[in-house]
C-alpha cells in the first residue's frame, strides 16, 4: 500500500517536473520568439534571427526528444499571440519541434557528437549538420506555413524559402552552443576563474560593440563597414584567454548589441538597402559566432592538451628536462627543481651541463651533438655510471632516458633523470652480500657444488677446485657425472631425484674423481635452493673429504686386529717361557745320561771311538736345542725386556746366529759389513732382533719363491752424519714390484701365500717407537733393499765420544 503510494507520488513528481520543463521550455521559446520577431528580416515575413530554434535544439540535445511539446507549444503561443492563421501556427509549431528533433537525431546518429562542445569537430558538426538540417526543415515548414496561411504568394515562396532557414540557423549558432556549454560547465565552476580579467574583457567588448553599433559615432553606411570589426580584438582576447561559457556568452552579447544597434538604425549595417544590409548583418553574426566557437574550442582543446602534457611531465616521479639543440634547458618539471635544488628560473636557458659534475661536462657536449642524429628513445650512458650535480655541489647517481622530439623548426631532447641513489645502495648491499657469500664459499674447507635440476654444474667453490683439480670454468654447464665413478652414477641420480622431489636434506657418501682420476671419498649433505615461486631451482651439495679419515678408520681397525694378534703372540710367548723350562729338564737329563755313558765308555780299556763321538754329538745337540729354546723364549717375551744400551753390531750378529740354521737350510749366505766404533744405542734388543728376523725371513722367502740362483744377504751398519745409525739389509731376490712397494708396510699386506702380513708393519712400528724410520729403499731387479735408522741418543753420543778417546 505504502509502496503503491510512493510510486504514485514518484510518478506524480516525475510528471510534474516534466510538465514544468515543457512549460518552461514553451515560455522560453515564446519569449525568445518575441525577441526574435522584434528584429524582422527586411522585406520578408521572417525575423533575422529565430531564437526558439536555438533553444529548441539545445533542449532536445540536453533533455531528449520528449521535450518537443515545449517547442511546439512555444511556437503555437507565438502564433496565437500574433494572430496567425491556425494552419500557419500549427505548421510553425510542428516545424519548430520537428527541426529540433531531426537536428538532434542527425547529430547523434551521424557523428560522435559531444554536446559539451569540447572539440572542434563537435562545433563543425553542430554548425554544419545539425543546424543546417534543423534550419532546412524549419525553413521549409515555415515557408509552407506562410504559403498555406496565404501570407505569401506561391511565386515568391522559393525566395522566401531561401531566406526562411537563415533565422533558424543563426538562432542555433548563437543560442545552442551557449546553452550547451553553460549546461556542461555550470557545475565545474571553471568559468569563475579570473573574474577581474573576465569583467575587464566584457567591459571592453561592450564598449567596443557600443562604439560600433551604438550610434555614438555617425558611422552608418557601407564605407564604415570595417567599424563592425572594432570588437574583434576583445572577442579574440576572450576567445584566447577565457573559458568556453564566456566565449559563447560574449558572442551572444556582441550579436545582440549588433542586432539592437542595427535595428535602431545605428552602425555599419543600418540604412543599407534593406535586404543587403540585413544579409550582411546575418553573415557578420554567423561569421562571428562560428569564428568564436572554433577559436574558443580550438584554444580549449589546446589548453587541455597542454594541461595533459604538463601533467604528464609533472606527474613523472623523475626529473624531466627538455633541452634544445644548443644544449640549453627549455623546460623542466618541478621534480627537477626538487631533485637538483634549483629554482625554475635558475635553470631555464642554462646549458644542461650545469646539472652534471665538472668531469663529465666536456665529454657530454660531444655526446650531445652525436645524439641529435640518433633514434627515438634510449637509455643514456650504457655501461657507465652516471652522476648528477646538485646546486649544493653534492653528486648523486642517476639513470637517464633520452628521447628526441622533432618539430618542423627544431629538435628537442627530452631527458628523464631518475635518482638511483637508493637502487645503487641496494645494489651495493646486494653486491656486498654476494661478495660475502663468495668469500665464505671461497675460504670454507668444505666442498660446495651447485647444480641445476638437470644435474649440470652451476658452481663449485675453491675447495672443490683444489681437491678435484678442475677450475670452475672447466666444469660449468657440464653434467655432474664427470666427477662420479660409473658405478655410483645411479646412486647419485637417485639422491638428486629425491632432492628435486623436496626430500631434504640428503646425506650421501660418494667417491669423486679428481682430474687425474684419483677417487676421493666425500660425505655429502645436500639440499635445494628454491625460486620465488617455491620450485626447486638448484641443488646444493656440501661435502667433506673423508678419504683420509676413512683410511685412518680402516687402519685403526686393522691395527686393532694386529694388536689382538700380538696379544695372542704374547700369550704364546708366556707359554714358550714355561715350555722352555719343561723342555730344558729332559734335555738336561739327556745331556747328563749321554755324558755319563760317554764317561763309562771312555773308562773302558778299549773305548769304541764311534760311540764316544756319537755320545758327544748327542750332548752337543741337546745343548743346542736348549739354546734355541732359550732364545725363542727371550724373543717372544716382549715387554719383559727394557731398553738398554746395546751394541747394534752385537744384535745383528746374535740375530744372524739365531737364523743361521734356517739360512743354511735355504742355502743363503750372509755378508756382514759392520762399521766399527759405532756408538751404543738405547735399544730393546729383542724388538730390534725381531725386526731383523722379519727382514731376513722376508728375504729368505722372496729368494726361495723366485728360486734365485745366488742367495746372498748383505747386512750393513753405518753411522750417518746426523746422530743416526742406519742398518741396511739387501738380498739378491727378485726385488719389489712397484705396486706392492706402496703397500708394503700396510698391515695384513702380504705377497706370501702363508704370510700374515704383520711382519713389516710391526717392524715399522717398532722402529718408529725407537725414533727411527724403516723403508724399502729400491725396487731394482738387483733385489730388495730394506733399511732402517736408529737414533743415537745424547747420552750415547757422549759415551761414543768417550769410547773414541779411549780407543784413540
Amino acid at each position, binding site marked *: 500500500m505504502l509502496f503503491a503510494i510512493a510510486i504514485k507520488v514518484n510518478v506524480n513528481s516525475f510528471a510534474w517536473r516534466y510538465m514544468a520543463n515543457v512549460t518552461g521550455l514553451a515560455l522560453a521559446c515564446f519569449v525568445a520568439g518575441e525577441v526574435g520577431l522584434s528584429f524582422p528580416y527586411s522585406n520578408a515575413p521572417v525575423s533575422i534571427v529565430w531564437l526558439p530554434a536555438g533553444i529548441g535544439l539545445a533542449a532536445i540535445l540536453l533533455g531528449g526528444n520528449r521535450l518537443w511539446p515545449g517547442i511546439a507549444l512555444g511556437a503555437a503561443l507565438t502564433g496565437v499571440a500574433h494572430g496567425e492563421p491556425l494552419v500557419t501556427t500549427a505548421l510553425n509549431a510542428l516545424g519548430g519541434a520537428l527541426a529540433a528533433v531531426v537536428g538532434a537525431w542527425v547529430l547523434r546518429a551521424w557523428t560522435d557528437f559531444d554536446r559539451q562542445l569540447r572539440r572542434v569537430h563537435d562545433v563543425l558538426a553542430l554548425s554544419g549538420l545539425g543546424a543546417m538540417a534543423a534550419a532546412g526543415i524549419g525553413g521549409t515548414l515555415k515557408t509552407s506555413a506562410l504559403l498555406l496561411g496565404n501570407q505569401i504568394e506561391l511565386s515568391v515562396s522559393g525566395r522566401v524559402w531561401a531566406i526562411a532557414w537563415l533565422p533558424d540557423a543563426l538562432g542555433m549558432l548563437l543560442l545552442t552552443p551557449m546553452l550547451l556549454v553553460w549546461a556542461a560547465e555550470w557545475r565545474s565552476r571553471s568559468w569563475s576563474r579570473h573574474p577581474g580579467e573576465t569583467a575587464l574583457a566584457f567591459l571592453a567588448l561592450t564598449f567596443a560593440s557600443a562604439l560600433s553599433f551604438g550610434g555614438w559615432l555617425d558611422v552608418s553606411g557601407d564605407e564604415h563597414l570595417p567599424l563592425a570589426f572594432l570588437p574583434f580584438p576583445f572577442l579574440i582576447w576572450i576567445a584566447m584567454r577565457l573559458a568556453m561559457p564566456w566565449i559563447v556568452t560574449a558572442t551572444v552579447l556582441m550579436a545582440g548589441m549588433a542586432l539592437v544597434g542595427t535595428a535602431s538604425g545605428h552602425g555599419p549595417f543600418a540604412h543599407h538597402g534593406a535586404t543587403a544590409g540585413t544579409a550582411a548583418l546575418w553573415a557578420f553574426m554567423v561569421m562571428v559566432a562560428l569564428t568564436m566557437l572554433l577559436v574558443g574550442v580550438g584554444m580549449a582543446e589546446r589548453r587541455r592538451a597542454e594541461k595533459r602534457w604538463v601533467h604528464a611531465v609533472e606527474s613523472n616521479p623523475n626529473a624531466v628536462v627538455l633541452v634544445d639543440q644548443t644544449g640549453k634547458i627549455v623546460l623542466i618539471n618541478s621534480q627537477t627543481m626538487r631533485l637538483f635544488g634549483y629554482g625554475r628560473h635558475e635553470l631555464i636557458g642554462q646549458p644542461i651541463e650545469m646539472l652534471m659534475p665538472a668531469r663529465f661536462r666536456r665529454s657530454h657536449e660531444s655526446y650531445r651533438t652525436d645524439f641529435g642524429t640518433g633514434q627515438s628513445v634510449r637509455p643514456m650512458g650504457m655501461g657507465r655510471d652516471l652522476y648528477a650535480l646538485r646546486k649544493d655541489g653534492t653528486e648523486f647517481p642517476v639513470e637517464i632516458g633520452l628521447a628526441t622530439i622533432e618539430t618542423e623548426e627544431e629538435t628537442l631532447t627530452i631527458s628523464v633523470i631518475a635518482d638511483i641513489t637508493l637502487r645503487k645502495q641496494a645494489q651495493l648491499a646486494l653486491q656486498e652480500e654476494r661478495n660475502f657469500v663468495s668469500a665464505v664459499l671461497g675460504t670454507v674447507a668444505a666442498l660446495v657444488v651447485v647444480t641445476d635440476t638437470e644435474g649440470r654444474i652451476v658452481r663449485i667453490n675453491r675447495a672443490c677446485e683444489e681437491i678435484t683439480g678442475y677450475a670452475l670454468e672447466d666444469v660449468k654447464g657440464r653434467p655432474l657425472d664427470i666427477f662420479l665413478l660409473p658405478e655410483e652414477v645411479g646412486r647419485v641420480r637417485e639422491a638428486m631425484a629425491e632432492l628435486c622431489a623436496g626430500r631434504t636434506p640428503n646425506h650421501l657418501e660418494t667417491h669423486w674423481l679428481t682430474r687425474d682420476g684419483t677417487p676421493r671419498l666425500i660425505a655429502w649433505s645436500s639440499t635445494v635452493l628454491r625460486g620465488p615461486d617455491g620450485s626447486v631451482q638448484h641443488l646444493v651439495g656440501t661435502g667433506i673429504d673423508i678419504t683420509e679419515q676413512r683410511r685412518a678408520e680402516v687402519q685403526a681397525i686393522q691395527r686393532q686386529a694386529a694388536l689382538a694378534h700380538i696379544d695372542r703372540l704374547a700369550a704364546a710367548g708366556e707359554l714358550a717361557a714355561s715350555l*722352555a*723350562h*719343561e723342555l*730344558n*729338564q*729332559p*734335555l*738336561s*737329563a*739327556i*745331556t*747328563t*745320561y749321554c*755324558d*755319563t755313558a*760317554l*764317561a*763309562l765308555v771312555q773308562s773302558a780299556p778299549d773305548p769304541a771311538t764311534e760311540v764316544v763321538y756319537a755320545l758327544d754329538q748327542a*750332548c752337543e745337540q*741337546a*745343548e743346542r736345542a*736348549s739354546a734355541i729354546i732359550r732364545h725363542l723364549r727371550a724373543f717372544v717375551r716382549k715387554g719383559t725386556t727394557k731398553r738398554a744400551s746395546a751394541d747394534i753390531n752385537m744384535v745383528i750378529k746374535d740375530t744372524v746366529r739365531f737364523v743361521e740354521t734356517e739360512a743354511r737350510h735355504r742355502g743363503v749366505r750372509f755378508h756382514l759389513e759392520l762399521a766399527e766404533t759405532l756408538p751404543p744405542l738405547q735399544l730393546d734388543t729383542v724388538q730390534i732382533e725381531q725386526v731383523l728376523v722379519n727382514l731376513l725371513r722376508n728375504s729368505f722367502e722372496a729368494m726361495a719363491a723366485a728360486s734365485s740362483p745366488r742367495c746372498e744377504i748383505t747386512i750393513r751398519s753405518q753411522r750417518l752424519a746426523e746422530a743416526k745409525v742406519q742398518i741396511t739389509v739387501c738380498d739378491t731376490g727378485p726385488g719389489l714390484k712397484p705396486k706392492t712397494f706402496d703397500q708394503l708396510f700396510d698391515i695384513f699386506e702380504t705377497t706370501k701365500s702363508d704370510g700374515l702380513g704383520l711382519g713389516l708393519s710391526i717392524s715399522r712400528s717398532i722402529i718408529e717407537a725407537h725414533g727411527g724410520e724403516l723403508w724399502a729403499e729400491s725396487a731394482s731387479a738387483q733385489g730388495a733393499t730394506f733399511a732402517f735408522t736408529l737414533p743415537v741418543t745424547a747420552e750415547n753420543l757422549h759415551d761414543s765420544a768417550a769410547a773414541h778417546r779411549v780407543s784413540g
Partner: protein
Amino acid sequence: MTVPQPTVFLVDDDPAIRGSLTLSLTTAGLTVESYASAPDFLAAYTPTRPGCLVLDVRMPEITGLELQELLTARGIRIPIIFISAHGDIPMSVKAIKAGALDFLEKPFRRTALLERIQEALAQDAAVREEEAKRAAVTARAARLTAREQEVLAQVVAGRSSKEIARQLNVSHRTVETYRVRIMEKLDADSLSDLVAKAVAYGLCKPPA
C-alpha cells in the same frame, strides 16, 4: 776316628734329572743322596755330614733360593751348586751373593758339574777340618787355670816374664813355670805358635 765319606746331596723335583745325575755322579765314584723336594732334604740331612748340595732353583713348595736362605739362617754352611733350566741373570746374581758356589744352567756338561762338585767337597772338607782344629784348641784352653789364663793374656799382649812377674806380684820363676804349663796344655811348639793360636781362636780376653 775316621772322616766319613762326603755325600753329594741332590735336590730336584724332576725325576729324570735326579736319575741321570745320580747315575752320572755315582759313576764318578761319588756318594749321592737325592731328594725330590727341599722338605725331604731337610728331614734327612744332619749338618755333621760332609758333602755338598746340588740344588734346583725352580721347585714347587720351597724353591732352591728359599732353601738357601733357610740353611743360612740355621748356620748350616754346606756349599751349594745351583742348577736351573730357567736361569736369568738377576736370579744367579742373587744366589751367588747369598754364598752359592756356582750357578749352572741346564743342560750342562758332566765335567763342568764334576769340577764344581770337587771344588765344593774340597771347600767343605777344609771348613770341617778348620772347625775340628778350633774345637780341639778350645777344649785344651778350657783346661787352663785362672792364673794361667791371666799369664796367657799378658804373654799375648807381648809382655816379658819380668814384667808379668811384677804385674802379678809373683816371682820370675813362677811366671816361667806358668808359661811352660800353658805351652804344654795348648800344645804349642813355640811362643809365636802360642800367640797365633790364642789370637786365632780367641783364647784370651784382651788384657785389662
